[in-house]
């Protein structure tokens, strides 16, 4: 199908883009990679007064590292495309979990166009980037004519497909604290490159005596938005991730989920899969750590 009529603006700066958003008072949307917006318009799931193309806005597609040690942070511009993340040596060394998860998104053409900021604002509950950013404890920088603010990923969603943005706000940057030492990712998809049935991303630090701390377990596709399984994480603090620890923590993840039934899977099936994949991800975390020790 063809999109319904709309006006088109090409913004040359963030200031221009947010001014236009404000003038249209909720009737306009920013056009970033277009990999979610364009299908919705073509299918007429959405009718908009105007699109504001931000692809020409300079300075929003970089990856930069600042600070050192515990204060190290990596800043990624909102318009950074998936393909740039895939190929950036800087991203590979500073944000390895994000880069691993990017490779699970869509296909080559989708990754050539889609952007990190677009994926976060789209807020698909099964999407990889919101889950990665949540587990990595990222903060989202937002600008509007009224000034700027930062939103923690944990507070970035009101619900599914509902980012906590005002209509005049634009995401400009995603800021990541120092990357955790260890990480693992596991997801189930029905078809290659499809949106997932569920996904699990885990991170953690391991002391020289083999005890784990700051274990974070993020779950995608099993709630309105990606969630952290806090009780399960707490169960693992100070443990060596022995089989019993992992089994009990995996069982505790049930508290964090409220899975939907849709065309990809029933709620029961998803609830069954969560501990299975959490167990796998934690075992992977453990074995990667041992492999690193041996090196």
């Amino acid at each position: 199908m063809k999109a319904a009529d709309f006006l088109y603006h090409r913004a040359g700066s963030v200031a221009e883009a947010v001014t236009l958003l404000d003038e249209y008072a909720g009737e306009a949307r920013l056009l970033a990679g277009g990999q979610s917006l364009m299908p919705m318009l073509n299918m007429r799931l959405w009718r908009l007064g105007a699109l504001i193309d931000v692809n020409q806005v300079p300075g929003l597609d970089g990856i930069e590292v600042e600070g050192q040690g515990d204060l190290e942070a990596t800043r990624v511009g909102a318009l950074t495309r998936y393909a740039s993340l895939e190929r950036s040596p800087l991203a590979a060394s500073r944000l390895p979990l994000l880069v691993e998860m990017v490779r699970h998104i869509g296909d080559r053409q989708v990754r050539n166009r889609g952007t990190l900021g677009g994926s976060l604002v789209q807020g698909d509950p099964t999407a990889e980037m919101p889950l990665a950013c949540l587990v990595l404890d990222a903060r989202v920088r937002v600008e509007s004519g009224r000034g700027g603010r930062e939103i923690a990923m944990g507070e970035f969603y009101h619900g599914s497909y509902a980012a906590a943005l005002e209509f005049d706000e634009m995401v400009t940057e995603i800021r990541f604290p120092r990357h955790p030492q260890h990480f693992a990712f596991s997801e189930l998809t029905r078809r290659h490159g499809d949106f997932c049935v569920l996904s699990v991303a885990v991170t953690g630090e391991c002391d020289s005596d083999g005890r784990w701390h700051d274990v974070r377990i993020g779950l995608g596709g099993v709630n309105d938005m990606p969630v952290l399984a806090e009780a399960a994480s707490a169960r693992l603090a100070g443990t060596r991730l022995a089989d019993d620890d992992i089994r009990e923590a995996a069982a505790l993840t049930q508290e964090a989920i409220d899975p939907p039934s849709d065309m990809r899977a029933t709620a029961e099936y998803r609830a069954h899969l969560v501990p299975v994949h959490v167990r796998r991800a934690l075992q992977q975390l453990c074995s990667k750590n041992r492999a690193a020790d041996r090196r």
Partner: protein
Amino acid sequence: MSFERTLNEQEISLTLNGERVRAWAPSRMHAADFLRQRLGRTGTHVGCEQGVCGMCTVMVDGQAVKSCLMLAAQLDGAEVCTVESLAEENGNLNALQQAFKKHHGLQCGFCTPGFLMLATSLAARGEAMSREQIRDEVSGVLCRCTGYEGIVRAVEEYLSVQQAEGSRFRQAEGSRHAEGAQQAMEAQS
């Protein structure tokens, strides 16, 4: 607030298969329709118009994209390559097209322009790729006829030939550079 209706139409200047062209399009028109209906290049096919089938894949500024998910207006200033750019001037098929023919990489041919442009963009990256990687890289175009085997084999053969030629070219360039450097050093001493 009122907006001029002229915003509903866009003037678009682009380089299409090496040729400068200019045309108008309604704002809501996607790039695939623009290429077909306004520029007469009907080699780019349209299937789902929701980014799933990959029939509309073309190269924009060297990258493979689904042109049903871009607006015509976004091609302004861009360099666009469609399947019409592949065959040689005398009408002979290029090496990639010949590989598709040889390996039975097409039956009805509806998906072929998409695969050809995706493979062309892969070759431009100049990386060696395993069959597994090729499968992954071409997964964004669907084919309902061939079962993909012939397509993957054709792309594999084409990439390996391109790679070999690319490295021969780079070696030749390298030795020219080395010669140049040698001469420069000799000139200095």
